[in-house]
């Protein structure tokens, strides 16, 4: 005990983390490819195949083979597929007609505008609501007052308030999206462990620096979950709005296909909506994963709790 102990632990040169090398060399793309290969080797893709076969199989059998009573008027999968991929569709809409893409574009554009507006206003608002107790006390009650009103209930009022046919629909979509974003952002801020803000103030950060370096990055995971929900809600409201009062757009297509007895087109519209909705949600998720590299890596490597 009289010997000066050299810094044994500090100089030990042992690897500092189990995934030391992996952490350095794997980029996000390689990580994703690796996980895809793992997925292919699991039973999951085959179960998925079974599920879809059962679903489409049942639909096919019920409508076109057994001709079950309730299903008599519905279009079967073969009819839909044939129509969707035909160069000369009976009802005017297929992947080869420009109108198809025009409708997709109109709907997507509306969602995009509403979504970006909602994010631009909702995220800052949510951040402040979570960050400043005083601000929340003033603003939150008014916020909550209007929230229970469902988006579509706003349609007549929106038509009355705004001129033109585009703005009411975008307003509707914006409202629903905005609420989801603002709420989730606020929850994100409130769920940040207080130790982080305390640590930052210990280290000499001003309130504004704490906001920028702790609050904003810390609530990102919640914000992006909120954004995914927000995109979904946006599509929900958009379709509702288009079905009630619109020209062009996928909701409009579905509605008019019904009134004009073009049933296969209804299904085409629905499937297209599903695909586009999923794609937009996936884009948001991917952007989030890219911006939050720290979280993707943490989750991928399992961490050390």
């Amino acid at each position, binding site marked *: *005990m*009289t*010997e*000066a*102990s050299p*810094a*044994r*632990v*500090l*100089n*030990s040169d042992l690897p*500092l*983390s*189990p*995934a*030391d090398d992996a*952490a*350095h060399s794997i980029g996000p793309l390689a990580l994703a490819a690796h996980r895809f290969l793992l997925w292919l080797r699991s039973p999951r893709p085959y179960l998925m195949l079974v599920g879809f076969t059962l679903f489409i199989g049942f639909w096919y059998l019920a409508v076109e083979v057994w001709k079950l009573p309730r299903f008599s008027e519905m279009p079967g999968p073969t009819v839909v597929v044939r129509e969707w991929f035909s160069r000369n569709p009976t009802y005017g809409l297929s992947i080869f007609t420009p109108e198809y893409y025009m409708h997709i574009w109109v709907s997507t554009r509306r969602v995009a505008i509403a979504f970006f507006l909602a994010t631009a206003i909702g995220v800052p608002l949510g951040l402040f609501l979570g960050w400043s107790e005083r601000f929340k006390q003033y603003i939150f009650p008014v916020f909550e007052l209007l929230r229970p009103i469902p988006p579509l209930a706003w349609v007549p009022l929106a038509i009355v308030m705004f001129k033109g046919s585009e703005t009411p629909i975008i307003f509707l979509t914006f409202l629903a999206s905005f609420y989801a974003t603002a709420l989730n952002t606020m929850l994100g801020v409130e769920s940040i*462990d207080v*130790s*982080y803000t*305390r*640590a*930052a*103030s*210990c*280290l*000499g*950060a*001003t309130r504004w*620096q704490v906001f920028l*370096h*702790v609050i904003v*990055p*810390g609530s*990102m995971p919640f914000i992006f979950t909120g954004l995914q929900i927000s995109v979904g809600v946006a599509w929900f409201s958009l379709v509702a709005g288009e079905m009630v009062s619109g020209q062009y757009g996928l909701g409009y297509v579905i509605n008019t296909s019904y009134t004009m007895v073009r049933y296969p087109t209804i299904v085409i519209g629905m499937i297209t909506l599903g695909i586009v909705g999923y794609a937009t949600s996936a884009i948001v998720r991917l952007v989030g994963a890219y911006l*939050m*590299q*720290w*979280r993707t*890596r*943490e989750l991928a*490597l399992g*961490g*050390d*709790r």
Partner: protein
Amino acid sequence: MSVRPAATHINLAVSAQPTRKGSVRITDVVKVYGAAGAGVLAVDHCTFDVPPGEITVVVGPSGCGKTTLLNAIAGFHSISSGSIHLDDELLCGPQKLKARPGPDRIVVFQNGALFPWKTNIENVTFGPIMQGLLSRAEAYEKARDMMADAGLRGIEHNYPGEISSGVRRRVEIVRALMNGPKILLLDEPYRALDSLTKSVMHEALLEIFYKSRVTIFFITHDLEEAIFLGHRVVIMTTRPCRPKKILDIDIPHPRDYSVLTAKRFREFMDETAAAVHEEAIKAFAAGEKER
């Protein structure tokens, strides 16, 4: 007989500030939570000193109020009465019930508070950059040196989520030391670690201490940890806490794990175990009653 290690060119030794001492004087501090009258007494007339340049460990059962004391020094909580001084400067007292958090008293948190969204070196350089004391390049250079000195070379650009929790603690300590604090406040930092990792962390902490000589105020419920690490051990009663026994541990530094089986160590354990156990039983009984 204690032998001081030979002075080596150390970067962890925080750049000389002549006034840096880090002695804390806690005088008659009382803390009551909740409305007056129906409140809960957490700290009951606590008085003791934290000598500069030494490791002072506060031991007590969970929930006794020792974290409240730490938070009061750090500036996260206010006190109800009494005063706390840092090097003769008032931190909080009768006119000013809450201290302001600052880089002269930095906390290392129980569950770790390294920012998960910043890389390790971004974390370590956070303090000086935020305060505008160093440019980015200067801060990074200093950080690289200090991290290397603390045995953390190579993980500068990893995220905290990619390294083990024991290593995270060390990074957090270096992050604190970058700011030349007068005192380091450690709030049960090794509580969540298994005992094998803990013993390695203890040695690492001591090694860092020997290099930097910063005052350390350490809270734990583990008596062995306290006696192993501390120059001075303060044993607290159960809630509301009050110093029950204060010991100066004269086991010489530098210490290593062989201390744990030394005769003097066992003597200290004998002296204190009964007192700690007594408080533990009281705390357990009080916990039962709180339904």
